[in-house]
């Protein structure tokens, strides 16, 4: 398998408290990698370390390597804007930018200097169609994005992230604040998108993990306990903690 991201011995601590302990894993290109684990085990932290959002945490210390296309992005002399533009982030709940729907989609393009009106309009339509939002909002592109429902906002945020043309999608429990129908839409989108993007999906919904995963990583208390194909991990877990988690003994 071809790996988009390889993590070697990533350790992260906050105020000297270890949060991620010696995490090593590979994230395969154009596949959905699901990160699974109980609450507080460090899934969000791991995801945010991939696009260096962990830099924002007071008292954070990181060591180890995160290789993006073979280049270590942890060693300081990287252009963070560049790294982040390669990864679209879909957070646990949507954070629309304080502007209208149209501008939410074009924001990323405008800040990187693309201002041609026709180009932008085409992009807006393209990406809104991609997330099945076009029909719902095409007549009110000038409305504030905050006027949309949460499910629509989450799809808008996905479209906004895709519009900057990332190579990787980082999704942190993207369906946890959504109704079943919106959740299904997002899930279906991800399955379609994986042919073009490398997707890292954090979830603690086991059934979602089974539906989506090409590769599964199970974390517990800041460590990667087990990783493998869904078949290996779900049907034949090796580690006792994984077994008891999968059998629903803790969440």
């Amino acid at each position, binding site marked *: 398998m071809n790996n988009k991201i390889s993590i070697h011995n990533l350790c992260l601590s906050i105020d000297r408290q270890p949060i991620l302990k010696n995490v090593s894993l590979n994230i395969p290109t154009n596949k959905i990698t699901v990160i699974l684990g109980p609450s507080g085990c460090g899934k969000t932290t791991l995801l945010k370390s991939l696009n260096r959002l962990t830099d924002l945490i*007071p008292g*954070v210390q990181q060591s180890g390597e995160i290789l993006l296309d073979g280049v270590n992005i942890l060693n300081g002399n990287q252009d963070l*804007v560049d790294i982040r533009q390669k990864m679209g*982030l879909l957070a646990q709940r949507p*954070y629309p930018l304080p502007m209208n729907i149209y501008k939410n989609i074009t924001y990323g393009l405008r800040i990187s200097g693309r201002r041609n009106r026709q180009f932008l309009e085409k992009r807006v339509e393209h990406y809104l169609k991609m997330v099945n939002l076009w029909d719902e909002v095409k007549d009110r592109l000038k409305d504030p994005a905050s006027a949309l429902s949460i499910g629509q906002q989450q799809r808008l945020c996905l479209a906004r992230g895709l519009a900057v043309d990332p190579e990787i999608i*980082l999704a942190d429990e993207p369906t946890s604040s959504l109704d079943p129908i919106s959740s299904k839409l997002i899930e279906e989108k991800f399955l379609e998108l994986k042919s073009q993007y490398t997707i890292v999906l954090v979830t603690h919904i086991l059934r979602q993990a089974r539906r989506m995963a090409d590769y599964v990583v199970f974390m517990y208390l800041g460590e990667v306990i087990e990783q493998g194909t869904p078949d290996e991990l779900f049907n034949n877990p090796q580690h006792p903690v994984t077994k008891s988690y999968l059998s629903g003994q803790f969440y």
Partner: protein
Amino acid sequence: MIMNTKTEEKFFRVLMFLSTIFIVGVLLLIVVSVLYKGLPSLSFTMLTSIPKGGFYFGEEGGILNAIIGSIYLSLGATFLAFIIGWPIALYMNVYLVKHHSLVNAIRFVFDVLWGVPSIVYGAFGFILMVFLGVRASLLAGIITVSLFIVPIMVRAIDESLKSVPRGLLESALSLGSTRSEISYRIFSREAFQGIITAILLSFGRAIGDAASVLFTTGYTDRIPTSLLEPSATLPLSIFFQLSSPIEAVQDRAYASATVLISMVLVISLLSRFIGNRRN
């Protein structure tokens, strides 16, 4: 003595009710007594002419010099304070997110500065003027008053930027924004109403303060035509003219108080209105 919780609750409820009534009563008393004295003297001439024969002795003329002077001064000082305070508040909330204790230290400093009496700013401005050899002037007043309201501006904008969710910052960074794009295109927009409230609050403080302009702006009958001329202001118009034995002069003081209190009331209501619309 053992009070059961019911009587205790009743006692404190009555206490709160009485203190509220008391405060509202005092406020009404102030407003009513100023209006009672000031409204009758609020004529067209009063609002549209400058004092004739000197503000302290002349019985003719009005307070236009003080109204215009105060507006010039407060607009200038608010503008200056905004230009200084807005970037500081953005810097604290967008650039220094990782340095929590530093941000808290900065907040503490501005809170202390907020509490420093305005006469101290006035004295500081005066020392600075003497040092630079500058006369009392609109410019000196604008600079002094802006120093006095910068802490208000910073902390008020800071409070509204503080409530911008961390997730929005993370989302914007993930889209490849730089910190300055986030500051001006996203945070300022998200906190827009809070920023307007901060501006109004600062303007209200600037227009009502007498002590900071006393040595720095001076007082004159004329309407200033340049930043280097001294200027009248409403608070000093009250201060200087109320002590006059001449009734017509005192009337000008009461008229000034009425104009000032109306402006401050309108500004407070406006900022309340904008603040409420945010929720």
